[in-house]
Structure formats: C-alpha cells, structure tokens
C-alpha cells in the first residue's frame, strides 16, 4: 500500500459555495449545459487520448480506482472496493463491488474487468494510434506490454499481473482511459479488438455500444462537431450520489469569447475552461461565478530541439531562459493566475524541487549569447494557431511577446504556425521544429508523468526525435526511480534526474498556470480539480 501514501498535498479540495458540509438540500432536475473547448473525438474510453473526450467519458464510464474529487493524487475506491499489492509488487488483486450493473443491464463482474484488461493488452496495431495512454502506461502492447495478465480469481475478484514493478500503476489506473465498459456493448460496438478500422467501430463513433459503463450518467447521443448529451442514471449503484441533474449537454465551443458570451447570456451553465483575461469580467458579473481549481498541475515551456543550431548550444538555451520577461507573460496572458515555473514539474508534484531557473535578465542573456560563440542567431519558432491550452491561454499572443523578448537580446525570429491537429503536434513530435511552444497537463501526480512521459524519456532506447535531448544519465536515473524499491531511493533518483536536467537546460519552462472555470451562479456543488477529474453527478442547478 505504500504507493498510496502519495499525499493529498496537491488536492487542495475546493468547495464551491453551498457545497460545504452543512449542505442545503440539493435541487433535483434540469439540464446542465457545459461548454468544452472542443468536441470529443471518440466515444470509446480506450480509444481516446484527449482531455475533452476524457472529461465526458469520466461521467459515464468508471474505473476500478479513482481520484478523490478535487484531488490529483488521492486514490479512492470506485468499482473496486479495495485492492492489495503482492510483495513482489507484480500482482494487484482487486476486490470488486457486487450488484453493479452496466447501463445495458449486464452485470459488472470479474469477467468484465478481465475482458477490458485483455482488450488493453491486445489493441490491434492499426488502432494503437488512438490509444496513446495505454501504450505510454504499459510501454506497449501484446508481448511489449508491461501487463502480464488479468485473471478472474472469483466472481468479484480480479488479479492483474505486471511483468516488472511499476510504482505508478495504481495512480495511472485512475485515468478515464482505463474505464471498464460492458463486454456485451464492446462486442456490439466492435470494440472487441476484432475490428481494426476505427470508423467501423460503432462504439467509438457514437453508434451502438458507445460508452456503456457503470457511471452516474448514461450516454445518450453525440452530434459530431457540436455536442454530446448524457442523461442521469437513476439506478446508479452509489445511491448516495445519484446525479441531481437530469441530463448534461457538453457543447464544443472553441472560442473563449463565445464561451464568455454564452455564460453571460445564460446559455452555458459551466465553462470548463476560460481565458484568464476574462476572469475579471466573470468575477464582476453578478450572475456568474469564477471557479478556482487550486494549485497548478501543468507546465508551459519553450520547447527546443537540439538537432538544430544554435539550439544545441547550452549557453543559447540558458540565454533564452534569461531573455524571457516571465512577469510580463504571467500578468498579461494569465491575468496572474499562474506562477513562474521553478521546475519542469509544477511545484507540489512529488519530489519536485526548486531548481532556481533563470529569471528575466537581459544583460545576462546577452552575455551568455556572447559567451556561446554562436554567430547565426536565427531561430525558426512555431506556435499552434487554432487552440488554446490550459497552460497556454493565448498561443499567438504569448508567441508575439516571447518573440519580442528574444529579438530584444539579439535573436532573429522566423515566425511559423500550424494547426494543432493539422500538423503542429505531428511535426513537433517528428522533430521538424527548432523551437516551439508546448506544455503538459498532468495525467497523474507522479514526476514520471512530467519528466519522462511528457518530456525527456527516451523512445525505444534513444533520445526522442522531439527534443533530441541526449543524456543517458537522466534516462538511467528516471528508470531507476520508477523501479525503486524504497521511497528514499526513488526520491534520490528523481532529484538526481532533476539536477542533471537543470544543468542541461534542454527547454525553458515558463509557467505553471491555474486553469479556471466559470459557471452560472446557479451552479452548486461543483468541485474543481486541477487534473479535471470533476464528477458532475455532485452538481445541481439552484434555479426554479
């Protein structure tokens, strides 16, 4: 159980007015309108890797273990009443709740869990593009998967066996991706690994067999490009937490301005993400409430690829770190709802320490450039032109400001941009960009999620094409930390990795933001979470 002691340090549980212990009676009924920054991508839990899909799916499909509402690290039982880890840290035995039924009426039991985990192991190659997290958490599929097997010990007991110890196993199983869906529905929706063409998997396309879980809401319909509707599950197993609202409509509203307008006009009850610069407007509107999600759980950085000159020069990277006017960025674009990054992980993630990263110092930056010996100071610099991210509220504006900072110390910037899903992610990952803007929102509260998964872990034993950052000592330290037998050893290894990374300055962390939400003043019972695990069955609408 030791890994479960990951503290609740992060989970500053934030209650919205009215949701405190002396709860006034919640009002039942009504339809909740939630604005998401984009449409969901698919309706099959396993075949998603984006935050919009996860946000919807987590209301419908439940995992074995989950996070306490508002927390990013406190694991609580959900479909599993309890679990045990074997002494060799390879076998986890989950004791399941009994009497739980899937939305299609079939029973939730050990067989269903085994069915789902077997599916995770054996995702067909063609679909592995869509199952990023399964690959990232288990290291691959089939023989390459760290999942050895899942077996039903009895009707309500499941044993999941790993090939090698993984200290983040339980924490990662809280990801909505690992939600348990009805085997009957999976077979119906062709999500049973028999179909390799994702368009024919009806369960992933909003058709038959979509999102059949055990959660407080039932999938109703998906209007692609526009909205997803889910309705209350009146027979939810957790009778204490049956949803208050009758239905939820998740609308894709890409423009922050439109979300703000919709809120102000009463057409939207909850905007999952807002522009930080709108916070003041929202706070000033008596019909609206601003929802703080507590501490930050993301890192925004200026990414660099060391296969390009002068990005391969540590002094240049360090100089860039000194050239950035962090305070200006945080004040202007985050409206203060961010802190200057002190690490590649947000402060508060386990083992994160203050790495005393450079602060704004033009003279120092210029000196470092002079020292670097580089003469060609032209940099290809990229930003995404069609999205905002929680860690990067205004990519274009931030890009313009950073460009101005860099030009002020002598760099020549060649501006570039690309659409997020239409080339940006693809190209930066493929190593086509010299310098670009990107960040990471935590999935689970482990240092590995940031340092390794998100940034600097080797891919297939070699530096990633993305950053081309080669430091074998860092890779070794991170691997050692994950397989560490004791917490002290894990700590040592993680701290070593951080120091090594700091010395290399492979990228420039800029800020950790605190993404805020906004809602109608009528919305009650909402518990915001920096990790966006926000169960909406707790929410009610206080209106006639």
């Amino acid at each position, binding site marked *: 159980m030791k890994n479960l002691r990951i503290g609740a340090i992060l989970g500053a549980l934030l209650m919205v007015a009215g949701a405190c212990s002396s709860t006034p009676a919640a009002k039942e009924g009504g339809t909740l309108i939630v604005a998401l920054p984009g449409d969901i991508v698919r309706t099959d839990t396993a075949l998603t890797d984006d935050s919009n899909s996860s946000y919807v799916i987590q209301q419908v499909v439940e995992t074995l273990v989950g996070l306490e509402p508002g927390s990013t690290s406190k694991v609580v039982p959900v479909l599993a009443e309890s679990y045990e880890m074997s002494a060799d840290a390879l076998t986890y035995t989950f004791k399941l709740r009994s009497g739980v039924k899937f939305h299609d009426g079939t029973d939730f039991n050990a067989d269903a869990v085994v069915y789902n985990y077997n599916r995770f192991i054996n995702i067909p190659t063609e679909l592995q*593009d869509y199952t990023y997290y399964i690959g990232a958490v288990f290291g691959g599929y089939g023989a390459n998967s760290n999942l050895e097997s899942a077996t039903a010990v009895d009707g309500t007991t499941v044993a999941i066996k790993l090939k090698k110890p993984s200290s983040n196993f339980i924490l990662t199983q809280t990801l909505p991706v690992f939600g348990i869906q009805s085997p009957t529905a999976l077979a119906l929706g062709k999500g049973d690994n028999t179909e390799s*063409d994702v368009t024919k998997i009806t369960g992933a396309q909003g058709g038959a067999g979509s999102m059949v879980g055990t959660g407080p809401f039932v999938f109703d319909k998906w*209007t692609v490009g526009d909205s997803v509707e889910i309705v209350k599950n009146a027979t939810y197993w957790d009778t204490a937490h049956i949803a208050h609202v009758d239905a939820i409509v998740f609308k894709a509203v890409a423009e922050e301005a*439109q979300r703000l307008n919709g809120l102000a006009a009463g*057409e939207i009850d909850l905007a999952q993400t807002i522009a930080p610069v709108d916070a003041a407007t929202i706070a000033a509107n008596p019909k609206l409430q601003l929802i703080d999600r507590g501490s930050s759980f993301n890192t925004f950085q200026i990414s660099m690829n060391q296969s390009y000159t002068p990005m391969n020069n540590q002094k240049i990277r360090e100089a860039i770190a000194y050239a950035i006017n962090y305070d200006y960025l945080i004040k202007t674009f985050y409206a203060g709802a961010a802190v200057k990054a002190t690490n590649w992980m947000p402060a508060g993630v386990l083992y994160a320490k203050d790495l005393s990263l450079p602060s704004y110092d033009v003279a120092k930056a210029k000196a470092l450039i002079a020292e670097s010996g580089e003469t060609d100071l032209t940099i290809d610099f990229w930003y995404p032109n069609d999205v905002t991210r929680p860690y990067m509220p205004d990519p274009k504006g931030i890009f313009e400001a950073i460009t101005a900072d860099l030009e002020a110390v002598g760099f020549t910037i060649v501006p570039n941009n690309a659409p997020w899903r*239409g080339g940006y992610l693809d190209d930066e990952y493929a190593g086509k960009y010299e310098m670009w803007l990107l960040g990471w929102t935590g999935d689970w509260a482990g240092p590995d999620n940031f340092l390794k998964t998100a940034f600097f872990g080797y891919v297939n034993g070699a530096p990633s094409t993305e950053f081309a950052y080669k430091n074998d000592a860092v890779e070794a330290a991170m691997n050692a930390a994950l397989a560490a037998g004791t917490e002290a050893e894990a700590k040592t290894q993680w701290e070593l990795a951080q120091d090594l990374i700091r010395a290399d300055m492979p990228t420039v962390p800029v800020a950790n933001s605190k993404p805020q939400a906004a809602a109608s003043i009528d919305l009650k019972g909402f518990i915001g979470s920096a990790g966006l695990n926000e169960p909406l069955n707790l929410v009610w609408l206080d209106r006639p």
Partner: protein
Amino acid sequence: MGRYIVRRLIAAIPVLIGLSILLFAYIRILPGDPCVAILGQHRTPAACAALREHLGLDLPLWQQYISYLLKTLSGDLGSSVVNSQPFLGEFLTRFPGTIELTAGALIFSIGVGIPLGRLAARKVGGWVDGLITGVSLFGVSIPVFVLGLALVVIFGVILGWLPTQGRIDARARFDATSGILLIDTLFAGRLDLFVDVVRHLVLPSIALGSIPLAIIARITRASVIEVANEDYVRTARSKGLKEKTVDNRHVMRNAWLPVTTVVGLQIGGLLGGAVLTETVFVWNGVGRWVVDAIQNHDYPIVQSTILVFAVIFLIVNLIVDVGYALLNPKIRYQ
C-alpha cells in the same frame, strides 16, 4: 419550358466537368508529398497506402481523373482524414443547419430588403430614401463577422434579448428528425421550441443577411423606380385601379424580374458567408465544419464541400432562371 430546362441542364455539364478538373487538381497541387499534405499527423503506412489507393496516385493522371470522376458520380466524395468518416454522411448531418441559416438570412434579406427598397422608391429623393440608401451602403460595407460580433454583444450579452450561439436551446435536448429544426419542432408539436429556434435564427440571419439585404434593397429601389415610370403603370392608374393593385400587380410583378436574378446570385454569397457566420455563432452547419476542416488540413472535406456548394449554386441558379422565365412571359415563349 421543359426544353428550356433541358437546355440549361446540358449547358451545366461543361461547367461541372471544369469544376471536377479544378477540384481534382486542388488536392494534387498541395505542396509536398500528398500523403503528408493530406493525412498530416494521421499518416501511418497503412493510412498512406489506403489514401494512395483511394486517390489512385500511382496511376497516370488521366486515369486518376477518370476514377475521381466516377467515384464522385457514384456519390463517393471521399472521407475525412481526421476521423475517417465518409464525407457525404457528415455533410448531410450538418447541411440542414446551413440550409436553415441560409433560409433565415434569405427570408430576412428579402423580407426586409424588398419593403425597404419599395419604401425608398416611393419616397425617392426624400430623407427616408437617403436613410435607406445609407443603411444599405452600410450593409454592404460591414463584414459579416464584425456585424455578428456586435449583434452578439449588444442583443445577446448586454440586452439579453436573444441567444448568442447554437441552433436551439441545448436544455431542450430536442431530437431532430429532418435536421431542419423549424420543421422538426412544428411536426413534434413543440411550438415553444419552434419559437426558440426562430429566436436562435434571428441574429445569425441578420448578420449573414445584411449584405444581400443591402443589395436587394438597392436593386428593388432601382427597379421599382424604373418600373413606376413605365407607361403601363400610368395606364393601370388611369384605369382606376386601387393603388395597392397598381403597386402589387403592375409595379411589383415587373420590378420582381431583376430582383429575382439578384436574389439568385446572392445564394452563392450566402453559402460563402455561412462559413464566417457559423463560426461566429457556434452554428452547427457545413460552414463551421469546413473551417474546422481547413484548420485540420482535412483537404478531402474542403474539396468536396467546395464541390457540393458549387453544385448547389448551379442548381439554385437554374431554379432562379426557370423562375425568371416563369415570371417573364417574353422569355417563356422564346
């Protein structure tokens, strides 16, 4: 009449062929490897092979074109590279939204533009005429998105009179059957929702309809002034017809002719304008979809949307011309 229609249809064939060549070329002149250009981040060896196969990239160009043409004619308009959904199905789910918006804008622009034009013509030279001329000048000079933003903030946010986004109150969770909500709500007997749909239509229709409104008002004004000076209008008055009859039957029946042609020409502009309007009003239609497709470099979607819009435009023009012929006996008998 039948022969006239047939002749018009035959005349459309070379245009359609030209259009198909243009769009065929479009997806092939994209810079770089078509697989990279089209599939972007979704390219896997398998997907690439499928795309090459679908486009017939390994065949000689003329064979590629023939196969494109045959596929298009058989209704296979390609698939999204983002979610691999066939174009047609996706298009059809969104098209009702665009029809509704376009119809709303058209009704607004005709419903307001023609009376304004008539009023201006009646008061020609007076301040009312000046005002209407000014308004229509403003109408053609203000971009859809500027007007849209202004309408949203003024009538949606500040005054709170009308909804700012979407096609229907999402809280109603209405199940559309045809997708044209004005019709669906009526058939479902939900008068309250019908009103709600109309309310949602108001601002986008005004934003999208402003340019056609201005153009229609201008042409109506000019046309009515011209017709009002015709001898036959004097004849009609001299016969002691009621002013209303003179206006509706003698003036308008003739003034309609140029107006009809202009209205027809607006349809293309409306479809184009829908792209911007749907973006401003979070309207679930083809326009917003195609903007997403552009942003995602989903070229097959862009290609086929242009094709379908152009075909619609040609059909509408045909209908307008036939309507024109029906209204104008001189043409009918030619």
